[in-house]
């Protein structure tokens, strides 16, 4: 078993990122480098000025987090920042040192900025609404007339939420030009103890808008969301009868009936790709074993039959056939794979250390997981494995415990929990381990699930 070299994985991620739509744009970039983009701070007119800082921060982060651009260094930006296309005036002869003339494209394309693209515009107040005028220019073009890639007006409420909304929408349109699915609008469900007991919380993908979702005042943990984003399953200790599975609608917030078989433990539920079935771990036989049932818990089928502990079954979201799961059948906990009928069981991890938390990427080709390989028990690091070849790459190196990876809908980002900063918090990163961002800070936060 060989390790994947990091550049290979990044290249893999990059080739997935640049779809056909963006191929022509990407093709112009010399040597397969990332395109560079400059995003100077927008100005806000009238009351929109109060929220323009939030707007600027959100837009910059959305673009930077996407991981497909090189961000042109802000300190090198020219002093004259355009706010509208009309602000550009072509000089008779371009002189980079002339500081009195109007803005021009080459101010951005030539060193030291050396950008390929420029996002600019302004926000204003109109009929008590937030209005964003946003442009994306290809600054390598010789004329303003051919430079414009995007020129669009966006509307939102005149507050922080509205500022974030228009920023997300503009970022989404920019990323779409490069065939990249924006994460704006995606949510992360997670477990937090900040209300006094562990409950399910939800936030925007960038950590904003954190809200409590369940109010059981009990131990609620191990969430999973259906692929269509309409249902949430979790493990609940309400009722005092031991862990059991509870399902809520994410549309109404209400509890949906689910039949828990008679067992001291029913836990770690996840959904099949079509959402019609649920697979979970139950101790009905005396040992935690894997079962499949209809979405309401009926039509129960036993999938594994060992005298060992087996938890966390996850079905391949693309094929709906292969199940990844964690088992102690060979000794210490490792990640295994089997078919949906329980046949063809294979151990995926090497047997070294302990392995847990398998998570399929949306393409159903790779799994992210936590492993203590090379470290003493409890020191979890994040790994990604090509499930077909079993080649793997390690993304974290001994920086605390890094657990429970979950892939973003774009298949290029991962969210994890890590105690690298002292307490356990939620962090997001690009799937090559870069662009690490801490999303939570209040209380203990763990077990994130990234959904559409």
């Amino acid at each position, binding site marked *: 078993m060989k390790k994947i070299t990091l550049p290979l994985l990044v290249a893999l991620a990059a080739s997935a990122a640049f779809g056909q739509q963006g191929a022509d744009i990407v093709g112009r970039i010399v040597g397969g480098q990332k395109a560079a983009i400059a995003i100077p701070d927008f100005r806000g007119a009238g009351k929109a000025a109060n929220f323009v800082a939030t707007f600027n921060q959100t837009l910059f982060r959305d673009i930077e987090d996407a991981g497909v651009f090189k961000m042109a260094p802000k300190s090198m930006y020219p002093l004259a920042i355009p706010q509208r296309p009309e602000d550009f005036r072509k000089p008779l002869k371009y002189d980079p040192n002339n500081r009195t003339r109007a803005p021009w494209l080459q101010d951005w394309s030539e060193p030291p900025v050396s950008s390929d693209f420029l996002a600019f515009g302004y926000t204003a107040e109109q009929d008590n609404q937030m209005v964003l005028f946003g442009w994306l220019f290809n600054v390598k073009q010789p004329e303003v007339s051919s430079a414009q890639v995007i020129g669009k007006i966006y509307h939102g409420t005149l507050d922080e939420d509205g500022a974030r909304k228009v920023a997300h929408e503009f970022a989404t349109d920019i990323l779409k030009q490069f065939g990249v699915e924006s994460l704006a609008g995606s949510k992360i469900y997670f477990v937090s103890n900040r209300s006094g007991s562990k409950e399910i919380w939800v936030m925007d993908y960038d950590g904003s808008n954190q809200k409590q979702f369940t109010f059981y005042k009990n131990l609620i943990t*191990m969430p999973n969301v259906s692929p269509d984003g309409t249902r949430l399953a979790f493990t609940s200790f309400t009722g005092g009868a031991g862990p059991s599975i509870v399902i809520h609608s994410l549309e109404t917030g209400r509890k949906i009936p689910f039949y828990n078989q008679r067992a*001291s433990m029913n836990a770690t539920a996840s959904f099949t790709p079509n959402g019609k079935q649920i697979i979970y771990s139950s101790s009905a036989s005396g040992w935690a074993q894997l079962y499949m049932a209809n979405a309401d818990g009926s039509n129960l089928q036993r999938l594994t039959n060992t005298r060992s502990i087996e938890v966390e079954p996850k079905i391949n979201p693309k094929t709906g056939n292969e199940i990844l799961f*964690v088992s102690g059948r060979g000794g210490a906990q490792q990640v295994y794979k089997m078919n949906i009928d329980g046949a063809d069981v294979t151990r995926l991890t090497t047997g070294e250390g302990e392995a847990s938390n398998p998570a399929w990427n949306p393409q159903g080709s790779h799994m992210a997981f936590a492993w203590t390989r090379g470290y003493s028990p409890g020191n979890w690091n994040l790994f990604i494995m090509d499930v077909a070849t079993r080649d793997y790459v390690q993304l974290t190196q001994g920086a605390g415990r890094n657990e429970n990876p979950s892939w973003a809908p774009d298949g290029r980002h991962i969210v994890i929990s890590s105690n690298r900063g002292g307490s356990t918090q939620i962090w997001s990163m690009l799937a090559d381990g870069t662009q690490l961002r801490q999303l939570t800070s209040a209380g203990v936060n763990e077990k994130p699930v990234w959904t559409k």
Partner: protein
Amino acid sequence: MNTKRASALALALTLSFFAAGCRKKVGVPPPPAAPAAVAPAAKAPVKKPMVTFFTVEPSTIERGQAAVLKWEVTGAQSVSINQGLGTVTAAGNRSVFPSSTTSYTLTATNEGGTSTETVTVNVTAPAAVAPPATPAPSDDFGAMVSKLIQDIYFDYDKSDVREDSRATLTKNADALKTIFGKFPNNTLTIEGHCDERGSAEYNLGLGDRRATATKEFLTQLGVSADRLRTISYGKERPSCTESSEGCWSKNRRSHFVAQ
């Protein structure tokens, strides 16, 4: 709706049955002494009964020792003492063994009214350390469980009962048979716990396995299975939080909780 009505009816029937039972018992004439005393004062305005005395000797005891209640009442049709002593004769004495400081109230009743008198027995902890295997007979279920039933500990990622835990569980089984004999309606919950190192998900299964293995061991020693419940907390409810073997070994446990 129907079940509610049915259960209300059943409750009413049950209550009326007991009420009838009580009346019957009260209706039994008290011992001869009382009627003799009542007889002279039987006419016209009936006076309330009089409590001549109601004392306790000694008024302070060590837990496990006896105190003697003595009383004499005149003019009563019925005399009773609370704290489970029930109906008593108009004059008498009774030994009591309270496990904690307890007040006894004597109530004497006739048509003219009710007289009461209260005495208190102060109970102190025994001076010498009481042997743990002989609890005071009046301990409640929870007290007996916490006094006599000990946690057992497991090796890392293991759920089989260790050699040292076998001895503990054998003692626990003997004690449980006694306790369950005394408290036929109570059950015991066995909580399975793990240290912080394994994944939370796997540990939920491991804690479950530890609790189940503990239950199986106890039932093999003759403890009734339907008196034992199991629950796994995985690593969600540690008894300590340091990252050291000293703390980890304490968290890998089956813990017993009285219901």
